[in-house]
């Protein structure tokens, strides 16, 4: 039958149905604890490998153990920004409400990881380079990322009208995304004090396999954490934005009964 082949956007089985806030809200609530538990387990395993399995670095001694949070945090800070930019673009093109809420929910966690990358980098830089901070390409572009996150959060919070707030935020997210490849490739493009990538898609990693394992497990922990916190945060955003709807009314009644 011809009609069976036609795409049906409102097909109840399609994953796209979760772009409706009303359906995404309970899904987020159900998924978040699983990701949070995964984050706890992964972080425990990662820290165990990082502190008790990975050997002392032959050049840097023990201080290199900062790597197990520094690199995952730096990766997450860049990745989260790209995901934010992706949702902003989807929101602008498809005009979907959930996309902008996702972008907003991601920003604080991205900013947190960005700060962690800068902070741990400073504490690692002092004993290895002799300076907490240098104005080189990698560090400066990462600092710019921090300001982009803060700018996004300040701007979206300052504009009352949700539609205008969303659009202004999306603009920062998209324009700022250009900075992410600059951060990533800065160690190749410019002469910098920061060491090059120890892990890349094209070359074999230049580090002990247990060090690499610890770092990757911690990176997965950071992913799981980010997903859990973002889902929790977006639930509050959904309630705010959808407060005029009937289903939020029911949800509030439910919450009140529980309190």
């Amino acid at each position, binding site marked *: 039958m011809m009609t069976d082949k036609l795409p049906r956007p409102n097909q109840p089985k399609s994953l796209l149905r979760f772009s409706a806030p009303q359906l995404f809200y309970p899904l987020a609530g159900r998924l978040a604890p699983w990701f949070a538990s995964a984050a706890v387990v992964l972080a425990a395993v990662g820290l165990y490998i990082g*502190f*008790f*399995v*990975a*050997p*002392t670095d032959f050049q840097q*001694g*023990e*201080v290199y*153990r*900062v790597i197990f*949070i*520094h690199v995952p*945090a730096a990766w997450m800070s860049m990745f989260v920004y790209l995901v934010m930019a992706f949702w902003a673009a989807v929101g602008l093109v498809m005009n979907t409400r959930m996309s902008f809420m996702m972008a907003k929910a991601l920003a*604080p*966690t991205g900013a*947190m990881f960005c*700060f*962690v990358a800068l*902070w*741990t980098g400073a*504490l*690692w830089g*002092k*004993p290895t380079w002799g300076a907490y901070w240098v104005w080189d390409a990698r560090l400066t572009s990462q600092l710019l990322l921090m300001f982009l996150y803060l700018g996004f959060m300040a701007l979206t919070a300052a504009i009352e009208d949700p539609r205008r707030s969303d659009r202004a935020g999306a603009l920062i997210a998209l324009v700022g995304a250009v900075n992410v490849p600059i951060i990533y490739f800065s160690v190749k493009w410019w002469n910098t004090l920061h060491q090059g990538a120890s892990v890349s898609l094209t070359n074999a990693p230049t580090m002990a396999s247990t060090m690499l394992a610890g770092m990757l497990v911690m990176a997965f922990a950071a992913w799981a*954490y980010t997903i859990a*916190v973002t889902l*929790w*945060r977006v*639930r*509050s955003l959904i*309630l*705010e934005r959808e*407060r*005029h709807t009937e289903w*939020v*009314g029911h949800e*509030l009644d439910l*919450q*009140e009964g529980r309190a």
Partner: protein
Amino acid sequence: MAWESWGAFWNMGGAALFVWGSYFVTALLVGVELMLVRHRRRDTVRRLIRLRKAAPPRGDVRVIEESVQ
């Protein structure tokens, strides 16, 4: 990898300040973020419940909103 003692572990080859300073601040920020997310959830639910009570069941919530903020 075996540390000679817990003392050696906490000392981190003399880099204790840098290593533990990194881990401590990260743990602190994660804790603060989780707390903020919880508070936000609680505040949002409370505020919206208050708004709903102030509004007649079928009334326009938007009109009353500003006064209840």
